C-alpha cells in the first residue's frame, strides 16, 4: 500500500468513525457523567480537530481513534465489523506510538482444547530465561519492568514463600542449597480475579485460559487484591518498548500493546498456543523444566505427567483449582 493510499484510507476511516462517535456520544452524553479531566482533554482535542483532523494529538491517537477506543464495546458484544475496526485501531496506534508495523488478530480458542502447564522443580535452575523470553514475546513495558513470571529462590527443605528470595542474581545460579520455583498466572479454574472484576473485563475462555480485554479494564485493581499468586500487574505508566524489541505478531486477548492504567498478566501466550505452538517461556527454558499441553488429549505429555508423577499445586487449600502443576523427579538432580 502506498503512502497516499494509506492516508486516504485513514481519512475515510476517520470520517466514519467520527460520525459513529458523534452518534454514540450524543446518545450517551446524558448518562455518562463528564469528568473534569475528560472535558478538558475533550476540548483540547476538539480544538485540534478543527485545526487538523488527522493529527495524532489525543494521547498519541487521532481524535477519531480516541473516540473509537472510548466507545469500544465489551469483547463479547462486539460485532465482527467492530472487532475489525478495533484491530485496525490497535495497528495504527502501534505505528504511531512504537513506530512498528504489527499484525493483530482476534484468535479464537481451538475446539477440544483445555490447556494446562506442568513445571519440573528439580529441573529448574533459576536462569530466568523464561522471564526474558516472556517479556520479548509479550511486549511488556521495559521501563516499567512488568514481568509475568517470578522465579523464587528457595532454601532446600523449605517451601514457605515468605522465606523466598525474589531478587537473587541469575548470573550466579544455581546456588548450592537452593532450589527455584517459577510462579506465574496459574490459570485457575475457579479464578478469584474473574469473580472480583466489577466489569467482566477478565474471564476464562473455552480453552481454560483466563484472558483480559485491556480495552474494557477500568483499572480498579480489584483482581490484583483477589489473586493469591500475585500474577496480575498494573500499568502504572505508559509501557515503553523500543521498535526493534517489539514483537509484531500480536493477538487481541494476548500480547497486543497495552495502555497505561490497565491490568495484564500471563495468558499462556494465546497468540502462539491457539495456533498450536508452545508458550514462549517453555521455548526459552534451557533445562526442559516446562511442559505445556492440552489436558483433553490423552496422548499429551502433560497428561502423562499428571498420571505418572507426584504433583502439587500452589495454595491448593484456597480452592482456586489452578491448571498449573509442580512436580519433581524422583531424585532431584544436584548442582
Amino acid at each position, binding site marked *: 500500500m502506498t503512502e497516499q493510499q494509506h492516508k486516504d484510507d485513514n481519512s475515510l476511516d476517520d470520517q466514519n468513525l467520527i460520525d459513529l462517535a458523534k452518534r454514540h456520544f450524543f446518545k*450517551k452524553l446524558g*448518562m*455518562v*457523567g463528564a*469528568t*473534569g*479531566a*475528560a472535558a*478538558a*482533554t475533550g476540548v483540547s482535542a476538539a480544538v485540534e480537530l478543527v485545526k487538523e483532523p488527522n493529527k495524532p494529538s489525543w494521547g498519541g491517537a487521532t481524535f477519531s481513534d480516541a473516540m473509537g477506543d*472510548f466507545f469500544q464495546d*465489551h469483547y463479547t*458484544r462486539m460485532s465482527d465489523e467492530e472487532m475489525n475496526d478495533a484491530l485496525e485501531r490497535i495497528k495504527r496506534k502501534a505505528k504511531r506510538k512504537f513506530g512498528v508495523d504489527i499484525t493483530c488478530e482476534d484468535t479464537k480458542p481451538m475446539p477440544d482444547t483445555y490447556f494446562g502447564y506442568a513445571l519440573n522443580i528439580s529441573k529448574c535452575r533459576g536462569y530466568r530465561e523464561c522471564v526474558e523470553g516472556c517479556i520479548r514475546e509479550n511486549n511488556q513495558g521495559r521501563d*516499567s519492568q512488568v514481568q509475568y513470571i*517470578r522465579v*523464587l529462590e528457595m532454601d532446600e527443605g523449605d517451601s*514457605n*514463600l*515468605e*522465606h*523466598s528470595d*525474589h531478587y537473587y542474581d541469575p548470573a550466579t545460579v544455581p546456588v548450592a542449597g537452593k532450589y527455584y520455583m517459577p*510462579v506465574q498466572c496459574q490459570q485457575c479454574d475457579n479464578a*478469584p480475579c474473574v*469473580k*472480583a*472484576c*466489577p*466489569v*467482566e*473485563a477478565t474471564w476464562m475462555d473455552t480453552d481454560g485460559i483466563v484472558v483480559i480485554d485491556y480495552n*474494557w*479494564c*477500568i*483499572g*480498579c*485493581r*480489584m483482581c*490484583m*487484591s*483477589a*489473586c*493469591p*499468586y*500475585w500474577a*496480575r*500487574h*498494573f*500499568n*502504572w*505508566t*505508559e509501557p515503553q518498548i523500543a521498535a526493534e524489541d517489539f514483537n509484531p505478531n500480536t493477538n487481541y486477548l494476548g500480547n497486543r500493546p497495552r495502555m*497505561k*492504567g*490497565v491490568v495484564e498478566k500471563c495468558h499462556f501466550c494465546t497468540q502462539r498456543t491457539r495456533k498450536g505452538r508452545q508458550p514462549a517461556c517453555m521455548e526459552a527454558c534451557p533445562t526442559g523444566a516446562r511442559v505445556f499441553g492440552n489436558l483433553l488429549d490423552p496422548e499429551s505429555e502433560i497428561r502423562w505427567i499428571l498420571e505418572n508423577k507426584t504433583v502439587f499445586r500452589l*495454595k491448593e487449600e*484456597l*480452592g*482456586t483449582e489452578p491448571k498449573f502443576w509442580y512436580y519433581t523427579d524422583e531424585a532431584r538432580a544436584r548442582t
Partner: protein
Amino acid sequence: MKVFYAFVMDGMKTALKGGPLYYMWMLFLLVLIGITAWSYSHQWTEGMVITGLSDQVSWGFYIANFAFFVGIAAAGVLLTVPAYIFHRKDVKSVVVIGEAMALSAVVVAMGFVAVDIGRLDRAWHVMPGLGKFNWPNSMLAWDIVVLNVYLFLNLFIPMYILFKHYQGKETPVRKYFIWIVITCFWAISIHTVTAWLLSSNVARPFWHTALMAPRFISSAFTAGPALMIIILQLVRRYTDYPVSQSVIKMLAVIMAIALQISLYFVAAELFTDFYFEGTHAASMHYLFLGLDGFDGLKSWIWTAVGLNLVALTLLMVHKTRENMVTLNIACVLGFVGIWIEKGMGLVVTGFIPTPLGEIFEYSPTLMEIGVSVGIYALGAFVFTILTKVAIEVELGRIGKHKNILKGVGNISDTAEQVEAAAVK
C-alpha cells in the same frame, strides 16, 4: 413544578450569599479543589506512577480514605434512628445536618474511588445497561450499587422534607417512614459491603476475617459521631440554628460505646493471630512489630492505639465527657486514631507481605496527597452548601409560605425548649 424551580433558585441564591467569613471558607476549599485538579491532571497524563503504589501494594491512601469515608457516611444513621425510631425531638431537629454529612461523605468516598481507578474515562463500563456489570459476583459491583443508592436516599429524603417546609407544609412522618427505614438498613449495608470488598479476598489472610464488617461498623460509629459532634458545635457557633446539647451528649455516649467495641475487636484479632503465630499472621506482625527489618507502619499503628485509648478514657470518665473541651479532644483523637487504624493500617497492611511472600513497603507521595486534599475539600464544600440552604429553609427565612411575611420560622422552639422537651 414552578414552586420547585423557586426552591432550587432560592437554594442557589442562599449558597451564593454569605458574609466575608463564608466567602473566605469557600474560596479556601476551592483552592484545595484546584490543587487536586492540578495534581490529578498529572496523574492522568503520566499515569499512577506518580503515586507511591506498586504491584506489591496496589491500593493505598486513596482506598484507605474511601473505606474510612464510607464509614462516616454510614454514621449518618446514628441521628436518623433516634430521630425517627425513638422520636427524639431534639435529634430530629438536627437530623438534616446528619444527612448532609452522610451525603458529603459519600461524595468524598466516591471521589477517592474515582481517582484510584486507572481508567476514569471508562467509568461508563460500570453503568448498568451501557456497560457490563459483574453483578452479583463482584463485591465492587455491589459497592457501586449500594453507594449510589445511599447517595440518592440521602439526597432525596431531606430534599423532599425541605421542599415541603419551603412551602410551609409539614408532611406526616408516616408518609416517608418506609424510606427512613430503608436508609437505616442501607447505611449499614454500605459499610458492610465495603468491608467485604476486603474480606472477600481469600488471597489476603489479613483481610480474610469475618470480623472485618463488624470492625468497620464499630469504628465508623466511633469516627462518625466524633466528626458530627464537632460539626454540630460549628453549626451552633456560626449559625443561629438551634443545636441542643442533649444531641451532643447522646453522640458522645454512642462514641464511647462504639470505641470500646472497636478496640475489643482489635484485641480479638490480635489474640487470634499472635497466640499461635502461623504464616497468616505475617501481616499483623508487620503492622505491630515489623517484619524482617521493615516496620513502616509500626509507629503509626501504635500511635493510633494510643490515641484511641486516650480518647476512650476521656469518654468513659463522666466529667471529661461532659466537659466540651475534653470531649472535643476525645473527638479529635478518636477520629485520627480510627483514620490511621482502619485507613492506612488496615488497607495497606493487607498487601504486606505479598501473596508470594515479598515485603515491599508503601508510603503516599506528595502528589497523592495533592490529589486527595481537594476531595476532602469537595466534601466540605458540598456539606457547607447543603447545610446553609437547609438551615435557611428550616428557620423559615426562605420559602413560599405565609410565615415568611410574619417572620416566624418553622422551628419556633429555641434550643432550650427543645432540650426541655427532650428531658421530658
